[in-house]
């Protein structure tokens, strides 16, 4: 029998090593794997690389930054409101920031999950973010090459999951979660509810279980 249900977030994150690249799902507060982030912050790993769009206000993620667990942040919107933590860490040389256009971030992650090592995109051409990139013309238009962005682990959040790892999301809480599920060598999915196998509509399963390693039910505390 296949059973990917793991009931304890602490157990789920136990194998995330120092130096790991961690993909963190969510957009603003929607679809953020908060319980997994808090369990990870509790473990205090070192030298993490975090790739996430803009969720650095999430408490667990904040704590990872505050306590010096993160060496590098890859993000399209690495800005926190009501705090200059990000600026302070960068100035102190304690955090490296890689700013990535949001669509490029999404496509690099999807590429990693889809076995595409590199692709070309028009986004950022002619801007400082393309400065060190390889440029190439196709049909008279200039593009830059971008490479796949894989994670040692993906921490994601879904509405429901079953023991095969199938996931469905709630509305815009879908965002980066399905593509990060594809791109993590290990994919840990926090879910609000466990579904009996066969009760999720096969036409509506957004993340087939093939991409998911552990399903961790967490009752939302809000």
């Amino acid at each position, binding site marked *: 029998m296949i059973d990917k249900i793991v009931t304890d977030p602490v157990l789920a994150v136990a194998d995330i090593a120092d130096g790991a690249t961690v993909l963190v799902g969510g*957009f*603003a*507060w*929607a*679809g953020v794997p908060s319980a997994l982030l808090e369990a990870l912050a509790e473990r205090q790993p070192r030298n993490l690389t975090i790739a996430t*769009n*803009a969720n650095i206000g999430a408490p667990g993620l904040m704590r990872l930054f505050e306590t010096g667990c993160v060496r590098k942040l890859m993000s*399209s*919107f*690495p*800005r926190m409101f009501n705090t*200059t933590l*990000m*600026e302070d860490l*960068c100035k102190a040389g304690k955090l490296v*920031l890689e*700013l*990535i*256009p*949001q*669509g*490029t971030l*999404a*496509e690099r*992650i*999807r590429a990693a999950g889809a076995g595409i090592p590199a692709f070309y*995109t*028009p*986004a*950022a*051409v*002619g*801007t*400082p*973010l393309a400065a060190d990139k390889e440029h190439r013309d196709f049909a008279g238009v200039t593009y830059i090459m971008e490479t796949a962005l894989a994670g040692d682990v993906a921490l994601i959040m879904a509405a429901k999951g079953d023991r095969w790892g199938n996931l469905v*999301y*709630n*509305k*815009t*809480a*879908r*965002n*980066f*979660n*399905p*593509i990060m599920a594809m791109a993590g060598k290990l994919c840990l999915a926090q879910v609000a509810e466990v579904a009996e196998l066969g009760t999720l509509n096969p036409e509506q399963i*957004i993340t087939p279980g093939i991409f998911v390693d552990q399903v961790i039910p967490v009752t939302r505390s*809000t």
Partner: protein
Amino acid sequence: MSKPLSRMQIAWRVAQDIDNGCVVNLGAGMPTMVSDFLPAGREVMFHAENGILGIGPRAAKGKEDPDVINAGGQAVTLLPGGSYFHHADSFAMIRGGHIDIAVLGAYEVSAQGDLANWHLPDSNVTPAVGGAMDLAACAHRLFVMMDYCSRDGTPKILKQCTLPLTARRCVNSIYTDLAVVDVIADGLVVREIIEGLDLKTLQDKTGAPIRLADNWRILSAPDIS
């Protein structure tokens, strides 16, 4: 001279230029107001980067769903016919040329339509780009919404942008409190200007040559509180 347009009035003016059936992405901040002023009878599909198409009005107070938000994090609603999708699909729509119009704010626009709207190197704030580069590079038409000059009166429409670019040659039209300016192959053309403001005075507020369109009109908007 008429009063300069308020931000809501600029949003109203942009909304008049959005045709029935268009797919439109509204940037965070000022542009999100545009959807409130669509003329009756026009049906438009509003898209946001975070995986939503068919955005309806802002959510009513007390009816907010934290999982139904736009790219600026505001609680919105979904129209009948709307749909949700993941980020790679959302940017496939943008990069693939499926967005008819994007409306973005700007720090600077050049006479060639270059856009700068993401980074103020002299400020203390961490730069953040979001989806602006993808949108600017790939939307069929790009509308900029901004004040004609910055608060201290410095021109924001320039021969060349001084700030880091978002994309080159991407802006089609600039909607401001004083004028609507189109960026065409041979330069900047003032399509509309507020009553009583003459071209020379507007030119003095502009860092690049502008000229009046043959069929220029008065820029005006209804009183919106």
